[in-house]
């Protein structure tokens, strides 16, 4: 029943005794789970079911709702501004996920030999800074850096690229990539430190022998570093992909989805639809799509990165 894989007690009487205890214990055990389960059920599972339910209605949140079936979902696919938020979310994945993980891999493999001692310890702390501050602060800081008189344009002018300076977050063509830039700042350090920690667990003898065989840095990187960091890469991808698809704080503070809908992502659009336009049904349908999207994207990543270790 419950404790099959525990060592079986030697004598019969003791076993019976334990068995009785175990049965009573399972009833008490459920009492142990109950508070967590209740909080989870009331504040997560119930809203989850309600979101799905709302998504089938046309409702302003106050007056009676009308059943519309799948119409809200159809609307999302038909209205460019709505389905566009999903495209934008995927474009953010490139910035929030692929670049920090890819760059993080290269950077950490280059610094992993010199990142010991004092410099390494300081670097770990510094690179982790953006991870502990609120994303709202990251949005405000970068909102200023990317503004017309901000640091980014100042640096561009300093290196003779004054011609391309602009208000990055207000530019239809560049705003989304500028938001992506904020994602790199927040997530690059995290990925680098996580991958670096993984690298210290790789046996140095592997590199030593690769070197004796005359392997280049790049071959070493592809043949040893990447395969052995499979797990850590999977973790980085999972964390960053969720950060991109479910992005809200950074975008809300930096651009609020603008200019136009250039940086609107599902999280922002759900907020606007539900709380500004009172289209609860439509917002809920988008919320359901966002939740499905996250699961559909995360499962293959988990599957690929853990298949050997499980």
């Amino acid at each position, binding site marked *: 029943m419950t404790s099959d894989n*525990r060592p079986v007690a030697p004598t019969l009487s003791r076993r019976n005794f*334990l068995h009785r205890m175990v049965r009573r214990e*399972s009833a008490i*055990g459920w009492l*142990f*789970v109950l508070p*967590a*389960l209740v*909080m*989870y059920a009331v*504040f*997560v599972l119930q809203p*989850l079911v309600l*979101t799905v339910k709302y998504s089938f209605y046309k409702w302003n949140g106050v007056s009676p709702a009308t059943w519309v079936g799948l119409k809200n979902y159809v609307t999302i696919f038909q209205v460019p501004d709505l389905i566009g938020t999903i495209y934008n979310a995927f474009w953010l994945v490139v910035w929030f996920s692929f670049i920090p993980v890819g760059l993080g891999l290269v950077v950490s493999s*280059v*610094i992993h*030999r*010199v990142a010991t001692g004092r*410099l390494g310890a300081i670097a*770990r*702390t*510094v*690179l*982790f*800074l953006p991870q*502990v*501050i*609120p*994303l*709202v*602060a990251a949005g*405000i*800081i970068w909102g*200023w*850096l990317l*503004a017309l*008189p*901000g*640091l*980014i*344009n*100042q640096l561009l002018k300093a290196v003779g690229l004054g011609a391309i300076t602009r208000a990055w977050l207000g530019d239809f063509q560049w705003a989304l990539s500028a938001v992506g830039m904020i994602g790199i*700042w927040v997530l*690059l350090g*995290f990925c680098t430190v*996580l991958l670096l920690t993984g690298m210290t667990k790789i046996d140095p003898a592997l590199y030593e022998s690769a070197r004796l065989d005359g392997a280049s840095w790049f071959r070493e990187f592809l043949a040893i570093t990447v395969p052995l960091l499979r*797990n850590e890469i999977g973790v980085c991808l999972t*964390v960053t992909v969720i950060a991109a698809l*479910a992005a*809200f704080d950074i975008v809300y*503070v930096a651009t609020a989805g603008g200019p136009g809908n250039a940086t609107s992502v599902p*999280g922002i659009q*759900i*907020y606007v639809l*539900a*709380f500004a336009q009172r289209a*609860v049904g439509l917002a809920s349908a988008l*919320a359901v799509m*966002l939740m499905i999207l996250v*699961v559909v994207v995360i499962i293959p990543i988990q599957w690929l990165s853990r298949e050997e270790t499980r």
Partner: protein
Amino acid sequence: MRVARGELWAGRLLLLALMAFTILPFISIFVTALHPSGTVPNGLEWPAVPQWGNFAEAFKVADMPALLLSSTFIVLAVVPLSLVISTMAGFAIGLLRIPGARWLLFLFVFGLTLPFPGIIIPIYLLERAAGIYNTRLAIVLPLIGLYMPFAVFWMRAHFVNMPGEISDAARVDGASTWDMFWSIHVPLARAPIASLGILMSIWTWNQFLLALVLVEDPTQRTMAGALGAFQGHYATDIPLLCAGTILILVPTLVLFILFQRQIITALLQGSVKG
């Protein structure tokens, strides 16, 4: 391992460049915060006369003491309770292996990837109906629920690796399940409980969406929520906005510098296990 000189310097240079990329934004807002209120300076420009008074001004208009109190209250309401109930659940699922444990674990893990925007609408409507909208409770209660998937998963990972013999011995001695839990297993689980506490405190302090949607009054919000409100009011006064942002960051930065080892370890472990 032998490392070539050139490689050593390339590595150090890259590391320094990356650190500069991380730090420069902070320096930029710090310098900007010292410019006269209402002006629009350059991104990185030392002011003619540093206006240290901006910090005092931001402290006053943002009502910092009230914000600190509110955030601290929310953290204290969320974290200890979440720790107790998730440790209990992790203990029952991982160590007691109650009937249905696998099913329960699956139910909790299912919530791990759930994006907050996905369920914010019903939470808002339910709280309006329950009359707790615009109170700190409106943030506290859903946060505890939202932390459960990760927290239970985390604590279960600890308890599932504890040898059963410890409890068997205590059980024969006639200890009740609660005694066993409280006086044997909780002390043994101090390390994972501490890490989980750090993680949940940071997440709570930095929680924005729930504060934005569920609470209008900034002095009833989390720090991140209050910062959002501050930006809404002072978006055009850049030096003051920068000063306010720095003030709101100070508690986080001080704690981070004091407990950097524990915080970094917790965040890394947290992502690996999650």
